[in-house]
């Protein structure tokens, strides 16, 4: 399969959205486009598994290279491995759910959908690029749509949040840029190519500079402590689909970059710095969980819990074992689906009750059974109930972390495990207060989910259940790719 379709399809959708005459056409175009994306992503999964079964151990599949700025040795080099395919699937699921959930957006519909599609374009491009210049290009493409989505359609102190998000992410990508330039000049022929970079041995003193730059730079996107502060503000101010994209896709760009670019290319430095990564991510996990306990706004609850959950991703990467790394990728996919659904449900509730304060709600189960049921499922997924995706991912990370016999890693694992208890506290409390108890008079006439909301929820639930009940397929998908990364690390060890 030619991967360029994954870029061309959103591009075509964006053009069609711009050409559409009225709001209905805009929505239809976006829906058709995102449906086509999901078909393409699932097709890619099947083609990929077939191809991977045929030729085992390839670094990347479906490679394609187009000339672009040859004088800088930059080329449009595309290719996927298991990790990218998993992320592409995640993106496709979140995009269609986001499009469906925002069906009721009335303010500047065309611009809204155009920016959503542009965001998805950035994500697909990021996940399939093998040239780091292109990767950086797509990473930055996504910043401005986020800024405008929050600033125009958001709520609360939206301008502040939008600015904060755009500047912090730009700062992150500035660090990434410097790291990439450092790598560029170490290759003999000056290249940004990921494959070429993975084959040369990069001098250790270059790694010592470039690894932290890249890891922290990408880490800002995935809320590495102490650069997580944009997450709560950004998520809570964004419109529903915006938060879904931010938490579901955008934060995953960072995790993917940390793993596929920083750790993969610079294994020596990854080993050296792993202690710091583990400490920072443990802090993020625990700090995120405890901060969430104090939140009263549903969106803030989910945003801070995202900090905690994304901490697991970085913890899994920092542990540098095969199982933990696979778990980290699973956590990215699982958290992406789960948190997107969580934000979708919060959006649905807010649209009806016009409040997000947990205290002001109660007894919603009676009037909106579907929405609250989904809220229950997603909440349980977040606290790691077996049978749902959260459990699988976190369990895999813990198993991988426990492989280290020494005290330091054990303590970090135990701290991370402890956060689950805290998670249970805040999730159960929030859901309980929202769904159970006596219902207020003004909420008695509220309706349940409409077709578009149901469709969005069902699509994401399918993903969560598919990972929760039968995690093998995802495991099989990711494992060969993490094996290649681990192979490089084991050589260094």
């Amino acid at each position, binding site marked *: 399969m030619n991967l360029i379709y994954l870029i061309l399809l959103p591009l075509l959708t964006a053009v069609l959205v711009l050409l559409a005459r009225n709001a209905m056409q805009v929505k239809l175009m976006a829906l058709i486009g995102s449906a086509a994306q999901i078909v393409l992503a699932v097709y890619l999964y099947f083609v990929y598994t077939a191809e991977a079964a045929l030729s085992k151990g390839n670094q990347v599949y479906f490679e394609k290279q187009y000339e*672009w*700025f040859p004088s*800088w040795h930059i080329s449009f080099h595309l290719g996927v491995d298991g990790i990218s395919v998993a992320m592409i699937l995640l993106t496709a699921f979140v995009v269609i759910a986001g499009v469906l959930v925002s069906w009721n957006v009335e303010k500047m519909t065309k611009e809204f959908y155009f920016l959503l599609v542009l965001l998805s374009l950035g994500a697909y491009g990021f996940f399939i690029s093998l040239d780091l210049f292109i990767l950086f290009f797509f990473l930055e*493409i996504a910043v401005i749509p986020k*800024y405008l989505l929050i600033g125009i359609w958001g709520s609360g102190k939206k*301008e502040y949040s939008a*600015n904060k998000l755009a500047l912090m992410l730009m700062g992150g990508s500035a*660090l990434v840029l410097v790291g990439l330039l*450092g790598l560029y000049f170490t290759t003999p022929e000056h290249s940004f190519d990921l494959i070429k970079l993975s084959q040369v041995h990069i001098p250790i003193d270059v790694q010592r500079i470039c690894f932290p730059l890249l890891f922290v730079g990408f880490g800002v996107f995935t809320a590495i402590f102490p650069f997580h502060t944009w997450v709560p503000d950004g998520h809570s101010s964004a419109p529903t689909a915006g938060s879904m994209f931010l938490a579901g896709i955008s934060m995953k760009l960072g995790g993917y970059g940390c793993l596929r670019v920083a750790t993969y290319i610079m294994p020596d430095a990854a080993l050296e710095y792993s202690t710091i990564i583990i400490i920072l991510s443990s802090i993020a996990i625990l700090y995120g969980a405890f901060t969430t306990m104090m939140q009263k706004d549903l969106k803030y609850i989910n945003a801070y819990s995202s900090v905690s959950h994304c901490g697991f991703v970085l913890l899994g990467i920092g542990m540098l074992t095969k199982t933990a790394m696979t778990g980290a990728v699973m956590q990215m996919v699982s958290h992406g689906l789960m948190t997107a659904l969580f934000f979708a449900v919060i959006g649905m509730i807010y649209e009806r009750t016009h409040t997000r304060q947990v205290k002001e709600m109660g007894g919603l189960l009676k009037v909106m059974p579907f929405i609250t049921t989904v809220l229950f499922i997603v909440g349980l997924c977040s606290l790691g109930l077996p049978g749902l995706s959260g459990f699988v991912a976190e369990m895999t990370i813990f198993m991988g972390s426990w492989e280290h016999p020494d005290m330091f890693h054990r303590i970090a694992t135990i701290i991370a495990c402890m956060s689950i208890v805290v998670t249970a506290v805040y999730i159960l409390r929030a859901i309980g207060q929202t769904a159970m108890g006596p219902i207020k008079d003004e909420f008695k006439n509220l309706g349940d989910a409409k077709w578009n909301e149901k469709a969005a929820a069902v699509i994401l639930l399918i993903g969560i259940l598919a990972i929760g009940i039968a995690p093998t397929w995802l495991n099989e998908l990711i494992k060969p790719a993490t094996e290649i990364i681990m192979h490089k690390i084991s050589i260094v060890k």
Partner: protein
Amino acid sequence: MDNFFTLLKSELLITIIIFYLLFIKIGKGVRNDGLLTMVQILLLINLIAGFFFNQEGHLNGDMFYTNPLIAFQKSILNLGVYLISLLFAGWFRRHEHMPEFFILMLSALLGMFLMISSGNLLMFYLALELATIPVAAMVNFDLEKKISSEGAMKMILSSAFSSGILLFGISLMYGATGTISFAEIPAMLDGSPLQILVLVFLFTGFAFKLSIVPFHLWTADVYEGAPMAATAFLSVVSKGSIAFIFITALYKVFQPMHGVWYNMLILLSVATMVIGNLFALRQQNIKRFLAFSSIAQVGFILVGISSNSSQGISAVVYFILIYVFSNLAAFGVAAVISSQSGKEKIDDYKGLYKTNPFLSWILALALFSLAGIPPTAGFFGKLFLITAGAAKANYGFITFVALNMMVSLYYYLIVVRAVFMDKNDLPVEKINIHPATKLGLIICGSGVLLVGLMSWIYDYIQNLF
């Protein structure tokens, strides 16, 4: 003499247009509208002609030198002037002295052409004066405005001062090396203190014209006072031409002393970026805002120049090409709004998107390009400048530059926020845009979008030398 016409082609074409305008001015009863269209067509022909029959060669000994790269640089300047003639059509056709403005602008352009083609310090100085004095008259073109005269006064004083320093440097150069020919100087340079003094003097002269910090103080006042068309010319075409000759001077003439000027460049680049960015943060007037933002952009150009490689030259030329599109688009939008409603404050732009979506998108594209956000061309321009600069492996400096991109994004976003997000009870009314201006804005917008994505443009520049 065979090559006289092909080598001097650009200069001759400009001269013809100047004479045409002079004769028109003598005649009576010419209407501005028709004349403006005529000038636009002539400038378009001039722009297209610039891409053909480009050769390498000398004229008058070493006085005049041209090659395909220099011809391309002239084409970029031509493009800038052509776009100015389109973008400010609304202002031009209402101004009673329109032909004079074009005569002055084209004379300055002629000076710039001769300047970037000069192969001799004397020729360079003469051309520079030709490129400067008409601009001062352009700045003062709104005779009834006090602020305009003030700007012109500041400009002429600082220009005279910098020319004085430049001339002193040139005379010292003759004293130190015994020659003023670009080709012969490098062999005579050995890094003696006197020669370093020469370098400092010449550098200062350039720094004044490029408004490098700490020689930038005239910029904001002049930009604010001048009519928008003159501001645009000053900040885009004039700056571009100085950057081109600056590269030639450093790379060709002062090549043996590159260790010295590398450090100077780094220091001044950091200072320019910081001061430009910090002052841009607080500006209320869109012209002053663009003035400080263009100071910060010069800081980025210096990063590319510091690389001392052919990649550096092509990155700078490419960046200036992009800068022409993005900065002129921003000035164009500002001019349309200011000429229709007289509003020049950033606060007045609040709610612009509601009434003028086309202008808003063009402005947003221009600002994103200036900030270096993909997929606009500015991203590629800035990235290549930084990549070229990073070849020296000076990572502290490069990290600083990259983080400055973040700071600059902040103030560009202030304008974007005003346009798209802030509410306003009295937004700028719906504006009927002059067709020529609209064409100009569309050219700028598509340039901003496409010049980066179409990588062959960069390769074309790279293959010119």
